[in-house]
């Protein structure tokens, strides 16, 4: 296990140059884009003196290289700085406000998509070429190509408006109080034994999770199916059958585990992608997550917030991919670091 620790340490160290390069890129690209936060806030009609004063306050009148060095120095101190617009709140607070909503939606939608994908994929792989298989493949293509707002609105209309089963927008009812610990409502309400809050948060989570989960599941259905079919052709599966191992056990304990590596790769990529916020889903369900937040801040040229968020993402993505690599080694004993 020593080698695993060395591996993890190496990977962690390697994220530093990665973050640095990414940060530099974002820093300059943001400044190449036309407009700046001052113009975005006060508009073109403000007096030149006013604009100049605001620029000075934000340090935007300094030479570019100076701004860059100042910013890097700040980051090295572990400070993401303050937002350049409105309340000028610390970037870390802004992220802390928004990120839990995204994380909660990500985990739920991700679980929905993986569950649908695994069940349909394994099922289809046991009956290749049958009507059920063709049907599931068709479902997976349709699901994958569905436009999220369309599916979202269909569900909102049927389950929300017509049947009045589920709320259609937001994270919880305005009247329900959930004490904030992690910002994940489901977890917080459980930790505070707030059953009303839990049920409420769950009801609000269902529609966006299902919408996003169904759309993402198509990929897994196809991937699980093809990966399973490949494994099921292998010699050791025949050998298992020849040893009279029950078919269900062969499928789940042996074939699925062997077929899981490519699926895990996809899961890691998709989880990272989801953490960046599902803008379409968030917009459809007025979900206060990172996707809409980042988009808005890019529009306002809120340099520090965008830069800080990107750093935060870079670290998250690095962490997720490291975890995926560790799981690889856990699943497959032939993989050693």
């Amino acid at each position, binding site marked *: 296990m020593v080698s695993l620790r060395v591996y993890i340490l190496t990977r962690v160290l390697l994220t530093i140059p990665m973050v640095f390069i990414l940060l530099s890129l974002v820093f300059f690209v943001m400044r190449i884009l036309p407009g700046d936060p001052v113009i975005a806030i006060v508009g073109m009609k403000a007096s030149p003196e006013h604009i100049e004063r605001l620029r000075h306050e934000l340090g935007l009148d300094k030479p570019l290289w100076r701004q860059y060095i100042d910013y890097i120095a700040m980051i090295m101190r572990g400070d993401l700085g303050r937002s350049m617009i409105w309340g000028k709140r610390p970037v870390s607070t802004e992220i802390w406000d928004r990120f839990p909503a995204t994380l909660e939606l990500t985990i739920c939608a991700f679980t929905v998509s993986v569950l649908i994908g695994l069940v349909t994929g394994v099922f289809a792989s046991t009956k290749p070429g049958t009507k059920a298989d063709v049907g599931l493949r068709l479902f997976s293509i349709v699901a994958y190509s569905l436009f999220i707002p369309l599916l979202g609105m269909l569900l909102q209309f049927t389950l929300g408006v017509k049947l009045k089963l589920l709320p259609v927008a937001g994270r919880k009812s305005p009247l329900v109080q959930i004490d904030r610990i992690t910002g994940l409502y489901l977890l917080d309400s459980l930790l505070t034994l707030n059953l009303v809050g839990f049920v409420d948060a769950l009801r609000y989570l269902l529609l966006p999770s299902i919408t996003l989960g169904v759309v993402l599941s198509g990929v897994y259905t196809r991937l699980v199916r093809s990966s399973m079919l490949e494994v099921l052709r292998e*010699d*050791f599966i025949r*050998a298992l059958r*020849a*040893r*009279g191992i029950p078919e269900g056990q062969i499928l789940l304990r042996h074939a699925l585990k*062997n077929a899981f590596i490519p699926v895990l790769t996809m899961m890691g990529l998709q989880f990272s992608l989801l953490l960046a916020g599902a803008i379409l889903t968030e917009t459809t369900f007025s979900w206060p997550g990172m996707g809409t937040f980042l988009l808005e801040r890019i529009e306002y040229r809120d340099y520090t917030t965008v830069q800080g968020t990107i750093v935060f993402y870079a670290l998250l993505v690095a962490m997720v991919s490291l975890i995926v690599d560790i799981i690889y080694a856990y699943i497959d*004993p032939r993989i050693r670091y």
Partner: protein
Amino acid sequence: MPPLLDVRGLRVYYMLGDEAVKAVDGVSLKVEKGEVLGLVGESGSGKSTLGLAIVRLVPHPGRILEGSVLFKGRDLLKLPEQELSKVRGGEIGMVFQDPLTSLDPLMRVGEQLVETIMAHSQLTKEEAKEKAVKYLELVGISAERFYDYPHQFSGGMRQRAMIAMAISTSPSLLIADEPTTALDVIVQSQIMELFQSLREKLGLSVILITHDISVAMEVADKIAVMYAGHLVECAPSETLYDSPLHPYTQGLLKAVPNIELKDMKLVYIPGTPPDLANPPPGCRFHPRCPRAMDVCRREEPPEVEVGETTVKCHLYR
């Protein structure tokens, strides 16, 4: 007493589009209790398909069209899937050609053995583990390798582990399909010795499928020779060696090098085996047969009993 295994008129075709590859075409054979049958033939002669068909594991698009496989008086071809899976690995053990790919790479070897034992008994996990260790030791793998993964085993060890799995459920019949082909010569002879000793210890019947007639000669009591989906000759090993009847068997034996006969010339059989989708009419060997007659081109030869030998050839009618 009826034989342990009695295969009658078995036909297995692979359906490829509108073509049918006649891999096993009307084969009958018997295996007695405690007997080692060597099933010999070249690649594509249908010997592996025959082995798989006995436990109904013929891969897609193969289909068992006709025949019966009587095992201890029950027809395996008519058994419901659930009961058959108790026979597979339980009463009939199988060992395959490639030990490198025949174990689940993600599961510890010992656990795979435990899984097999538990699938065929009411033992608890601890009892099954005890038994697993015992069987690993029986095939010459020490107990401390129990927790190894397949990739930590050598080819020979993996094949030993496969054999341990096949015999751990105390089967009465072991079907070994080219069990030593993927292994080097020294390991090959070790595995063959293992088979011999297991057979003596456990009183096991074995069907040894091999393309190497000399390997079969070493261990088998009886040898069945397959050619192009037909069983062409079946006889006790010594009889077959001393007086092979079928021209194909004669050709096979002439192609085996013999260390005692210094000036012996190796003779190969000219031509190639036929396309089993469109096999030649009459005797399938006639295009390559040095003694082919007119009738061979027209009529499929009957099975003729000559002494202890059963031969499918017009010469002995």
